[in-house]
């Protein structure tokens, strides 16, 4: 029993230690093996944690001290365990994909650094998910910010450095705001542990209503910058579109989510549903989520570059997550978490497909992909399935989160919001369908063109196929997953 509760820490340590051992490995090939071995070990442990949570329920782990006031505490509930294992699953598949593509995208002496960054990033993401101590969360958020900038800038083109600098400056603003929020909450509760803060707030929040309001505002804007909430998203399209394909897949699919999840923790576990609903900030989050859903899709329609298009689509999808958080109900938060999972699996597959298309055609613009469905049938079919989930075709996870969001809007008597969900889905269709239709039916483009073999190697397609399969399964078992995570958030 003792060993099982310390598994989360072991999981994080395996990734950190493997990252710090990598500089001593000489060959690039061995680096890749070390990286994916560490990730796989962590993934196996995470599956053990999920099984344990299923059997025995949520548990705490105290590092160092038994007394919770002194030590850093980890909390592992159903949501944490599920997010943890699914994120690791996606990271492993992206890492496997990067084995075959990263060599052509970055310089040879940078490959080692890339995998060090990937392992550090995964460790810090797990830390943000597990931690029950806000200052510890801040430290992990900083590590994640630095390493995610690292995997962007590893390509070292002119645009790339510019995008990374923009990203880093924006995320330092975010961290500054988060740190100020922590300082505020510490000054009037005297605790850093989320549960203890919750008790302290319940006891005497009436004296500190304004301070509490400022704290929530600071956390929302700080974490909003990092997870690309609508008006604070400006760094995202540049950073995600100029990075190497594997990095874009990781950034868009994984790195945005833990910060949004941390916001859920702050809102609902630290402050509590009843109290949060008294402040207007929850309405602001809902409004910004709606704006993000609409604006992200509108901006994506005008994009020529496929990676930029998918990056803007990420902003729209993050809008759905903030929409779910902003509904201010436990089920809304549960759908936000489900959408994080569904989007993580889908968006990484989409980015990897687009990476393959760019690699094989040599073009980044969508106009050149006419008729490509005949030349790269499997890649394009996988892309189509992913796009279907984004648009919200039934069975796929994208549909399920939109469906439940609409139902929750009806429950909360906010019928106007359903139109926002509908409009956003239609806009999604507006920019994904032309790519698919031109890809499969734009045959006239193939005339007078010399045929070049665009056969994609099987090992590059396997990770994408696995992700799409996982996506379909997530959609099929959505009921079980929502049952698993929603009681936690009540």
């Amino acid at each position, binding site marked *: 029993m003792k060993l099982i509760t310390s598994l989360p820490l072991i999981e994080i340590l395996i990734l950190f230690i493997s990252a710090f051992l990598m500089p001593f490995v000489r060959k690039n090939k061995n680096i890749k093996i070390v990286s994916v071995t560490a990730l796989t070990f962590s993934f196996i442990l995470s599956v053990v944690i999920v099984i344990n949570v299923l059997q025995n329920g949520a548990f705490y782990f105290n590092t160092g001290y038994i007394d919770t006031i002194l030590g850093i505490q980890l909390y592992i509930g159903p949501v944490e365990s599920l997010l943890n294992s699914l994120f690791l699953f996606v990271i492993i598949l992206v890492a496997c994909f990067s084995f075959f593509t990263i060599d052509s995208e970055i310089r040879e002496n940078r490959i080692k650094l890339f995998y060090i960054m990937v392992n550090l990033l995964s460790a810090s993401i797990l830390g943000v998910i597990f931690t029950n101590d806000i200052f510890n969360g801040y*430290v992990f958020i900083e590590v994640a910010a*630095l390493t995610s900038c690292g995997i962007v800038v590893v390509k070292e083109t*002119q*645009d790339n*450095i510019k995008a990374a*600098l923009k990203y880093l400056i924006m995320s330092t603003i975010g961290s500054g705001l988060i740190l100020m929020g922590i300082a505020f909450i510490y000054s009037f509760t005297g605790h850093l542990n989320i549960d203890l803060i919750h008790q302290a707030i319940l006891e005497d929040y009436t004296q500190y209503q304004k301070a509490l309001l400022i704290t929530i505002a600071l956390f929302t804007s700080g974490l909003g910058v990092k997870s690309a909430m609508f008006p604070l998203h400006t760094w995202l399209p540049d950073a995600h579109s100029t990075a190497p394909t594997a990095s874009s897949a990781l950034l868009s699919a994984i790195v945005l989510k833990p910060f949004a999840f941390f916001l859920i923790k702050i809102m609902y576990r630290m402050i509590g549903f009843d109290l949060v609903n008294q402040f207007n900030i929850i309405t602001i989050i809902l409004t910004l989520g709606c704006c993000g859903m609409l604006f992200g899709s509108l901006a994506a329609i005008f994009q020529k570059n496929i990676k930029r298009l998918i990056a803007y689509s990420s902003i729209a999808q993050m809008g759905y997550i903030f929409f779910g958080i902003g509904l201010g109900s436990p089920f809304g938060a549960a759908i936000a978490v489900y959408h994080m999972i569904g989007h993580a699996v889908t968006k990484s597959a989409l980015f990897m497909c687009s990476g393959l298309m760019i690699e094989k055609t040599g073009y*980044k613009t969508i106009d050149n992909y006419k008729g490509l469905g005949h030349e790269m049938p499997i890649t394009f079919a996988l892309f189509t399935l992913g796009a279907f989930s984004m648009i919200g075709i039934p069975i796929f996870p994208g549909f399920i989160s939109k469906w439940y969001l609409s139902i929750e809007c009806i429950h909360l008597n906010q019928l106007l919001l359903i139109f926002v969900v509908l409009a956003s889905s239609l806009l999604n269709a507006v920019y994904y369908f032309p790519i698919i239709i031109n890809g499969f039916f734009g045959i006239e483009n193939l005339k007078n*063109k010399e045929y070049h073999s665009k056969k994609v190697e099987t090992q590059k397609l396997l990770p994408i196929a696995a992700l799409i399969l996982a996506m379909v399964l997530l959609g099929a078992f959505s009921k079980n997953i929502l049952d698993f995570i929603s009681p936690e958030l009540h």
Partner: protein
Amino acid sequence: MALFHNYYDSASIVLFGIGLATLMLNKNLIKKIIGMNIMDTSVFLFLVSKGYIAGRNAPIITDRYEGVTAYVNPIPSALILTGIVVAVSVTAFLLALTIKLYETYGTVDLEEILKVKGDDHEVNNQSSLD
């Protein structure tokens, strides 16, 4: 007045504003980095002043234990130490990126840099099928 009574808090909020404004509004990258440092320092001042009570000592017991009223809470100082380390590493990374940017663009003015169309866009138009 409460504003002058809590002069540490007031000063740190003013500093935070100055830092944030410098970070957001200045076009020069070096000044932006300085602004980020001012912003972080203001948070350190805010938090470390919470751990300061006039006349009390750090909780280090040398000769004899003088009772709980003689010592201050050491946690804010410990947090600030961590915060300083984080701020230093972020500053180092930002400066390194600025050097790289200066090498490729020849300027640290963000407005000038944003005018330049990067090489990534050119790859788009030039590359062909063969």
